[in-house]
C-alpha cells in the first residue's frame, strides 16, 4: 500500500506519459544515459533494465531494513524480507515515474538508491509504531517545562525554560503545539505522525519549522540567545 507516494517525493516532473520512443537525454553521461534510455517504456532491453533496477533497489532496501534492525532488533527474518521487497517494489514505481526528473547530478545508482532507502526507512518506522497509539494531547505542551528541567539548572536555564513554556502557549496554534510536542518531545517519527494525520512529511515539517521560528522570535525579543552554537 503506497499512500501519497507522489507527495512524499515532492514535485512531479511535468512530463506526462511521454513518448514510448527513447530520446537520449543530452545532459547525461554514458552510463546514466544507458539506464534512462533502457528504462523508458518500449525501449530495447526495457524488461531486463527494469529487473536490474529492481535488484539494485532491493539491495538498498535490504541494507536499510538490516541497518535499522541491527540498531533495534524488532523483526523476524520473514518480516525483514517482506519489508524490503515491498519497499523495493514501491521504489521501482517511484523511480520509473520520476525518470525524467533525473538530471545526472549524481550517479544513476545513487539517485535510485535514495528512493529505496526512503521507502524502507518509512516502512520500518511505521512498522515499529504499528499498534502504538500516537497521543496528540492538546494539553501536553503544559508539561514542556517539567520535561526540560534538570536538578542542577542555574537561574538562567530556569528562566529560559519558563520562557519557552510560555512562548509555546502564547505564540503557537493548538495544532502547532501538538506537532511540536509529538515530534520533539515524544519522539514520534514524522512519517508515522504524517500517516496518522493523513498529511505528508514535508507539510508536517513545515509546520514544525514555522513553530520553531515563532518560538525563537519570541525568545529573542525577551533577550534570550537561542539557536546555532
Amino acid at each position, binding site marked *: 500500500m503506497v499512500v501519497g507516494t507522489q507527495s512524499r517525493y515532492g514535485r512531479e516532473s511535468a512530463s506526462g506519459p511521454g513518448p514510448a520512443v527513447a530520446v537520449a537525454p543530452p545532459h547525461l553521461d554514458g552510463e546514466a544515459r544507458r539506464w534512462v534510455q533502457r528504462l523508458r517504456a518500449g525501449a530495447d532491453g526495457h524488461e531486463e533494465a527494469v529487473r536490474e533496477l529492481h535488484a539494485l533497489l532491493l539491495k538498498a532496501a535490504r541494507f536499510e531494513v538490516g541497518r535499522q534492525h541491527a540498531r533495534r532488533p524488532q523483526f523476524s527474518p520473514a518480516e525483514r524480507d517482506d519489508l524490503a521487497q515491498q519497499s523495493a517494489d514501491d521504489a521501482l514505481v517511484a523511480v520509473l515515474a520520476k525518470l525524467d526528473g533525473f538530471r545526472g547530478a549524481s550517479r544513476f545508482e545513487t539517485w535510485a538508491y535514495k528512493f529505496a532507502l526512503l521507502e524502507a526507512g518509512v516502512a520500518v518506522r511505521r512498522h515499529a509504531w504499528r499498534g502504538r497509539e500516537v497521543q496528540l494531547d492538546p494539553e501536553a505542551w503544559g508539561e514542556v517545562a517539567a520535561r526540560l528541567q534538570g536538578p542542577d539548572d542555574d537561574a538562567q536555564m530556569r528562566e529560559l525554560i519558563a520562557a519557552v513554556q510560555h512562548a509555546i502557549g502564547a505564540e503557537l496554534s493548538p495544532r502547532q503545539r501538538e506537532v511540536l510536542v509529538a515530534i520533539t518531545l515524544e519522539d514520534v*517519527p514524522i512519517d508515522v505522525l504524517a500517516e496518522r494525520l493523513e498529511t505528508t512529511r514535508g507539510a508536517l515539517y513545515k509546520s514544525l519549522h514555522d513553530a520553531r521560528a515563532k518560538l525563537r522570535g519570541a525568545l529573542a525579543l525577551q533577550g534570550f540567545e537561542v539557536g546555532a552554537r
Partner: protein
Amino acid sequence: MSGPTREDRLERLLGSPGPELTCEECFEQLDRYVELELADAQADEHVPGMRAHLRGCPACAEDHEALHALLAATDAPAAERPEG
C-alpha cells in the same frame, strides 16, 4: 537510560536560525550531497541549507544517514565520476 540530553531537547524544540531546505528539496539534493560528502568536495558549500535541514529534521536525517552508509559500504562512487 541514556536519552537525548536536555540541550538536545532544547535544540530539537527550538531548531536553529538561518536558511534551510525543505524536506522536498532535501530529497531532491540528497544523492548529489552524499556523493560530494564522500568525495570530500565541500558538500555544504555546494548544497547550502542541507546541513541545517538534516539537523532539524529527524526523518530526512535518517535518509541521509542511510544513503551515506550504503554508498560507503558499497564503493566510493563519487571518486570514480568523470569530470564535467
